């Protein structure tokens, strides 16, 4: 994977999340644009690069939020582990794939954040609000990931190497 393209994507995504997230709010549900970048990287990049890249996105988001350091890194790492395992069985460019992976990813992230709020606190998060945010992010996924999939050449994702048995 071309890391310069990755960092540009991370920078733009986080900048958009910081600048736009509240204006994109519907009711109180806020989309997670960074998660969409995580899905994009995880669904296309080779295993190790995907995990590292998604973890990096999580760490960068942890540095720009009030939440405890490590929560988004853990969440996106778990999301990446799942998405990478589905690379061979899904149509990467299909909108339904984007929707379902984004919904699952956001639900998993919400679960981690809710668990942390419940166990460690002191912040309180609303489960219903997190669910609506997950739905909202999932609806945005086909709209944003579709064009991004067409730009995957810029990332030079390499296919996984086949093991040659002699």
């Amino acid at each position, binding site marked *: 994977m071309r890391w310069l393209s990755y960092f540009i994507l991370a920078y733009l995504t986080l900048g958009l999340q910081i600048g736009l997230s509240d*204006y994109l709010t519907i009711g109180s549900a806020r989309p997670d644009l960074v998660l969409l970048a995580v899905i994009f990287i995880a669904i296309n990049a080779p295993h190790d690069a995907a995990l590292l890249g998604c973890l990096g996105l999580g760490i960068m988001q942890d540095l720009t939020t009030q939440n405890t350091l*490590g929560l988004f890194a*853990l969440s996106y790492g778990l999301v990446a582990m799942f998405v990478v395992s589905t690379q061979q069985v899904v149509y990467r460019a299909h909108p339904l794939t984007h929707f379902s992976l984004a919904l699952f990813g956001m639900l998993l992230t919400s679960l981690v954040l809710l668990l942390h709020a419940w166990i460690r606190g002191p*912040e*309180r998060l609303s489960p219903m609000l997190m669910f609506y945010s997950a739905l909202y992010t999932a609806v945005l996924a086909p709209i944003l990931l579709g064009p991004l999939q067409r730009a995957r050449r810029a990332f030079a994702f390499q296919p996984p190497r086949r093991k040659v048995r002699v």
Partner: protein
Amino acid sequence: MLLSFLSGFIISPRISSRAQASVQNIFSPVARPVGAIAHWTHDRFSHDAVRDLGSPGATRTSAELIVENNRLRIRLASIQGQLERLRERDAEREKLGDVRDLCSPFNVIGADSGPRDSLMLGATSFDHVAEAMPVLYPGGIAGRVWRAGIGGVQVMLVTDSQSKLTASFARFTKSPDGTPEFKPLAADAILVQGTGNKKMTAQISQRMAGEIGVRLEDWVVLSDRDWPTALQGYRVGRVTQVTPARSPGFVIIRIEPDSDLMRLREVMVMNK
């Protein structure tokens, strides 16, 4: 991943937050222009009316506003004169007076990238901004500085679920000669907590609510010794709902700030 789990769930936030470098300003070149465009678009197409605090139900005419404005100016001049005389008599050196003189304005880069209620400012610790400094906006108190570093400043808003302060109720009433009068409703302060949804709540007994006579649009003003003296009585929000709580004999009072704090473009930090 293991380190992330340890940092998120095991290690105390007091330790891990030290490693949480303030890097918000790095994303400023993208976040600020994008936010400005979104703000312009919102203002252009939304129909948010300006609220008349003196008459929330129906906006008053220009003539009525001019008359009230003139009365307030005269009253302000009178109060300032009295204050000067009191200051001269008072031997203690406490910070009183116009709060603006104690603040520095800073631009807002954007909102929290996660689900929390916080703002990122275009300021650094080199701008004499430090943790726990109060942050104000034209409508009252916005919050407190949560984190200040060489890469940026993060503000925890009063509506964040981790925010707690004590406040009291007050109301503007009209005296017989028509002059608006600021009247505190009770001496006892109540605990106001953010709910994380751009709102705050306070829970008090029904008896206390009846004694105070809390009504919609009543002001909620700061009454907290952990905050600077100059901000005591400063506006936190307004009452928007009073509903019975699940616990019998109690009511929940919902409080909202005057503006959407997450969409502020500029704030003032009390750093002097």
